[in-house]
């Protein structure tokens, strides 16, 4: 087992005819993921890398049985694309798109409430269960199959940590990028709940950063409900107040959302916090032994 994506995952790529969409559809395909359909309105009937393209998600799901959507649609239309997939009962939506306005995400969150769809992202690298399925833009080959679950708000920082884990012989069950925006579909807690139930996952690495209180909420959840060892890494100790550090959600405002507060909350919950990305693998090895 793993979480979210595996051999049963049948992916449709929304925005498949764009530069990013076609490139990464092929990368996912090459990794062994079942990419069964693409959607670009007005481009139905074509193929991209041998993948049939449809005008609507409805057609794509009906014709191919897709159960997961990977979205590369540009920011102005991305919220609409998420809702289109949710309306067709697609169980998992992974939205890579960066730059979606907060207002659109508020509407998406309201739209998804009560529906059986899980959203990962936006502004994230996606989800990978090594050797089984890659639904995202991460470099597949740095991953090794194993028992460490990874959940992160970042992209390359996650690759860095995963690379370190793999090199130390610590494989991963599933790596989930939840995204760097202020409003995301799934929180640390949502993903931790899945890791808790996954027998393959023996330990979890959680990579957070400045902005918001998702890490503090995760710390409280772990202390109360999570029985597997967790190692954390928090980026942004050096970040100034009131400045957005690349990610729309990475901002300290009114003295809230600092790395110091997050590290303190995690440590108070008994969670070891790595001082550098390179130190994560060693800490994981120590909590697993």
């Amino acid at each position, binding site marked *: 087992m793993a979480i979210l994506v595996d051999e049963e995952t049948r992916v449709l790529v929304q925005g498949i005819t764009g530069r990013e969409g076609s490139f990464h559809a092929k990368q996912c395909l090459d990794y062994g993921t079942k990419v069964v359909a693409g959607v670009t309105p007005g481009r139905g009937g074509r193929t991209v890398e041998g993948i049939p393209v449809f005008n609507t998600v409805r057609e794509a799901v009906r014709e191919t049985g897709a159960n997961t959507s990977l979205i590369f649609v540009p*920011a*102005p239309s991305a919220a609409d694309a998420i809702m289109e997939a949710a309306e067709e009962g697609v169980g998992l939506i992974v939205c890579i798109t960066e*730059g*979606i*306005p*907060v*207002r659109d995400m*508020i*509407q998406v*969150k*309201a739209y998804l409430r009560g529906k059986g769809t899980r959203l990962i992202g936006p502004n994230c690298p996606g989800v990978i269960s090594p050797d089984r399925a890659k639904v995202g*833009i*991460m*470099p597949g*080959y*740095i991953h090794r199959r194993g028992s460490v679950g990874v959940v*992160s708000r*970042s*992209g*390359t*920082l996650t*690759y*860095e940590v995963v*690379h370190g884990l793999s090199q130390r012989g610590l494989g991963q069950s599933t790596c989930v990028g939840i995204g*760097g925006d*202020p*409003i995301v579909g799934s*929180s640390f807690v949502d993903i931790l709940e899945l890791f808790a139930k996954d027998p393959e996952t023996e330990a979890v690495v959680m*990579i957070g*950063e*400045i*902005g*918001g*209180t998702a890490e503090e*909420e995760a710390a409280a959840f772990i202390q109360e409900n999570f029985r597997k060892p967790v190692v954390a*890494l928090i*980026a*942004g*100790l*050096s*970040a*100034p107040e*009131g*400045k*957005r*550090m*690349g*990610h*729309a*959600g*990475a901002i300290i*405002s*009114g*003295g*809230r959302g600092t*790395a110091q507060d997050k590290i303190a909350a995690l440590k108070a919950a008994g969670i070891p916090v790595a*001082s*550098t*990305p*390179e130190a994560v693998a060693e800490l994981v090895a120590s909590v697993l032994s």
Partner: protein
Amino acid sequence: MKIHEFQAKEMLRSHGIQVPKGGPATSGEEAVEVARRVGNGPWVIKAQVHAGGRGKAGGILMASSLHEVGEVSSRLLGARLATVQSGPQGHLVKKVLVEEAVQVERELYAGVVVDRSEGRAVLLLSASGGVEIETLAKERPHEIVREFLEPWGELPSFRARRACFALGLDGEVRSQVEKALRGLCSLFHEEDCTLAEINPLAITKEGVVLALDAKISLDDNALFRHPSWFQLRDPEEEDPLEVEARDYGLSYVKMDGTIGCMVNGAGLAMATMDVVLQVGARPANFLDVGGGAREEVVSRAFEILLKDPKVKVILVNIFGGITRGDVLARGIVDAASKLQVHVPIVVRLEGTNAQEGHRILEESGLRIHVAKSMVEAAKLASTLGRN
């Protein structure tokens, strides 16, 4: 994106919220003109800069005669205003807002922010006008009334009413405050704000509800549907290097250290700066060249870093993912040789084809130092930066 108080008040007015009579001025004479139009005084002269704490810093002054309006305005205009939020170098005052002074009976706080955990916008209301909401949230959180907005931006009447009753407001004043609150919520939504704050929302001696000060931040990601925002932007309020980087599509934040950082990915960029800090040095900046780190982007990034006179050494930290390490290394070498980078460069390259990348960097004949880990790179940069 931050906007000025006079621009924020213009937005409030267009959403049916009353503000004091007044207008912006760029010279003493213009200020007198505005004052004459507004009424018989007294007036308030407010420096227009993107920083809070203007009052304590001497950026908000009273004037009781037209002569004084001119004098006070001329003194503020062209001066630098350093507030607790702006840092010691302060902001250059290029505009003042001239307004009628009002007799205040009571001051409230009203603001709309994004509740990130809930994924909704929320109205915050309190009886402590003039106090910063963050201070109140820390010291007396129970005094903040919270009401959620609907996803389409509406604050239903019953919630506006409930918030007002919670503060003990009633009668004509209550209905005016309700109207202001609902207007603020629709403004927040329609104008794609990340923050819309009226502090204080004043109730005057005459029972009129007025927004005395306003702070609005707009969502940069929504620029595509607000072409008029280009006119609201005041690039002189921002760091010139940050403006230039943004024009290149780079994410850059100026800081005060000496180690220029160039990293691919925002999270890794922050983590790199943290390591620099841990080894006892100070980062000069945050700079994310993007996941792919293409050559022309790396070139632009070097240009930006070299324009910062404080930068003594450049630390490049790249994780080669789908873009291979050898390609990235070649990009770094090409950009560095073309630009004749005069400071030492420390490169830490990890990921796909990193070995090959190291070889290219070492054989380049440039002053490029290859480090095997982030800590080693930061230490090396710190040492080189001291010489």
